[in-house]
């Protein structure tokens, strides 16, 4: 019944010319009505049933959907957000300290080398000393054996686990992701990571999290394997800044932002320079184009009528 009505409407719109269409239209519509007569009742009922089921399931899905996407994180005014703003390098230095002391036991940053830190957060001597504190497997030597040696500037930051399986095994099946690109690998990464780290709260009424997981509203699904790691004064900053949870969160996210986008400062400078120069070039090109076209655009056509 429903299907037949719709088809009739479509036919009415398509067959626009009145004179020719009328007999055709009536023939076609009578044909479709005839075809639909038997199955129309079943089809209508099926459509109605599908619609109701869809509506019902949609209502329960909508409420689960919110927790699934996670609470939207707010936008924080990062000091390096502006079009010509650089990183706060003191913050990067503190953030690296937080990473080393709080996060490095579970999260690798295998794309960063000690030499990348030179001139950004540490002097060359400081970076060399930091690298020398770790043991690195190198080799094979002349005897064909692998050996360990103290780290150098060219070495990558150490990994806490040998491989993903070891990481999962040590963390109840969950894999602590590598943080080298994390602020680019998550939507609205900087704000998300800060909100996540500082957003551990009691779950809402009616939500219970199983043993081994923790509630975090910003995490999609709400149940995250990582416990709250940033606690007031967990770290003692070298420069004496009070290490509150929010301060550590800001510093570590500054560090992670730098790690994911070390080229940011150069990129902004280059962008500003080239956009400026290309704007000048655009003005020059526009003038030149109009100059050359002025010959044609100022033509006058005379229509000469022969009497």
């Amino acid at each position, binding site marked *: 019944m429903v299907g037949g009505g719709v088809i009739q409407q479509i036919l009415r719109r398509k067959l626009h010319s009145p004179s020719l269409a009328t007999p055709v239209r009536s023939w076609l519509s009578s044909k479709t009505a005839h075809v639909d007569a038997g199955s129309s009742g079943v089809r209508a009922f099926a459509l109605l049933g599908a619609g109701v089921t869809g509506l019902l399931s949609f209502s329960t899905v909508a409420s689960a959907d919110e927790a699934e996407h996670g609470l939207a994180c707010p936008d924080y005014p990062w*000091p390096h957000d502006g079009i010509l703003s650089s990183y706060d390098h003191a913050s990067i230095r503190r953030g690296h300290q937080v990473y080393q002391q709080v996060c490095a036991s579970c999260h690798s940053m295998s794309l960063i080398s000690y030499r990348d830190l030179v001139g950004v957060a540490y002097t060359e001597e400081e970076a060399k000393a930091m690298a020398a504190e770790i043991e690195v497997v190198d080799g094979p030597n002349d005897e064909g054996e692998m050996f360990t040696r103290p780290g150098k500037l060219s070495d990558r930051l150490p990994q806490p686990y040998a491989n993903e399986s070891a990481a999962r095994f040590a963390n109840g099946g969950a894999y602590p992701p590598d943080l080298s690109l994390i602020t680019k690998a998550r939507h609205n990464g900087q704000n998300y990571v800060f909100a996540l780290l500082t957003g551990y*709260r009691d779950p809402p009424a009616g*939500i219970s999290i199983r043993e081994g997981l923790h509630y975090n509203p910003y995490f999609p699904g709400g149940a995250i394997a990582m416990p709250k790691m940033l606690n007031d*004064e967990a770290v003692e900053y070298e420069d004496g800044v*009070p290490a*509150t*949870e929010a*301060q550590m969160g800001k510093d570590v996210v500054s560090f992670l932002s730098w790690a994911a986008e070390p080229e940011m400062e150069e990129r902004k400078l280059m962008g500003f320079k080239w956009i400026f120069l290309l704007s000048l070039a655009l003005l020059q090109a526009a003038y030149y184009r109009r100059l050359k076209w002025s010959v044609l655009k100022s033509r006058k056509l005379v229509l000469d009528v022969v009497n």
Partner: protein
Amino acid sequence: MFHPTIWCDSDDYRADVEVVDPKKCLEESCKPKCVKPLLEYQACVKRVQGDESGHKHCTGQYFDYWQCVDKCVGPKLFAELKW
């Protein structure tokens, strides 16, 4: 110029007292702005407490409340931290 949230400043004059986390402090100060969603959440909690089925929860009202608080805290927080 008067700084209204000076009491959330982490460079505290009360040096002997343990540090105050500016985010927690600002969230407390933003509570009055978000009374409506807070009351909605508390009403929901009451409704859920009596629930036997275990399916009812207050995630929606919880999210609405915290979204309001986050919007209030967001622009102010970094001013309280060391730049």
